């Protein structure tokens, strides 16, 4: 429990909600990162705003880590960010573990049309039946995966 801080969590959630609300009411677009990322390649005619959004996403993370240092990982005064190591005893090289995870996430979010932001935030807020199913499935499977691999 040492790392649980409800106020930054709630404040960050409101920021993510405002970001999604702005993109929806301003541009009529769903702030689903897998979708924004997954249609970056030509011939998508909407490459420019997607690139602008993703570059701003990185800059926003970076700027916040300097304005509000020391909330956890990242920025000055924060701990260095690191990716999860493979579960103890699995004898799999870390880059391979990470690569398999990335492939599954890229492929799964493409055919399933969304991730934690597109289905989890925007889809639930739109009361989309597809998103309720997707969110129920990917949260359950992720929780099971952590339980089975013992990665934490």
């Amino acid at each position, binding site marked *: 429990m040492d*790392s*649980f*801080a*409800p106020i930054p969590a709630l404040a*960050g959630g409101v920021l993510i*909600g405002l*970001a999604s*609300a*702005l993109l929806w*009411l301003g*541009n*009529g677009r769903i702030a689903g*990162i*897998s979708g924004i990322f*997954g249609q970056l390649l030509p011939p998508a005619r909407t490459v*420019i*705003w997607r690139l*602008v*959004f993703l570059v*701003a*996403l*990185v*800059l*926003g*993370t970076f700027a916040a*880590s300097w304005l509000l240092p020391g*909330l956890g990982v990242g*920025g000055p005064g924060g701990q*260095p*960010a*690191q*990716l*999860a190591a493979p579960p103890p005893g699995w004898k799999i090289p870390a*880059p391979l*573990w990470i*690569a*398999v*995870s*990335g*492939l*599954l*996430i*890229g*492929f*799964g979010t*493409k055919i*399933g*049309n969304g*991730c*934690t932001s597109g289905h989890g935030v925007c889809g639930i807020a739109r009361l989309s039946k*597809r998103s309720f*199913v997707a969110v129920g*499935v990917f949260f359950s*499977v*992720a*929780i099971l*995966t*952590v*339980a089975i691999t013992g990665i*934490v």
Partner: protein
Amino acid sequence: MAAQIRLPYLATAALSGLLFGAGLYVSQMVDPLKVLRFLDFGAIPTGGWDPSLAFVIVPAIVVMFIAVRIGRRRQAPLFDTRFNEPEFHHIDAPLVGGAVLFGIGWGMSGICPGPAISLIAFWPPDLLVFLVALFVGSYAGALIIPSGRDKRLALAR
């Protein structure tokens, strides 16, 4: 399409991205290990569970829910001619199968696509491996499942 290269449209995308990125840092969802500590429900009885992700996603949904209600009373968003709301409503095998594969990948690393991009700001070791794999996986998926509204609707007919 012309609307999508005008300044107000791109400025909105930029401001949205900035807020989203700031939100991922402030909530610390940018930290994959913190996300994994949420997914570790086995730690609930021992008091080691980190409920943060729930505290992040609920207010985000509430704010977006209000925005969707406001949007339903309008004909169009401010800077484009229509809301790009998905019109595909069937629960199909790609949706469920995709969510299963995403869930496995997410449980392996604690990284979902938003934090994957925002982590570029902090560039941890092996992030490049993850991003290349994410792109390759997404591209492979696009070869199998048509993406975009028109194609999805055509498939549903």
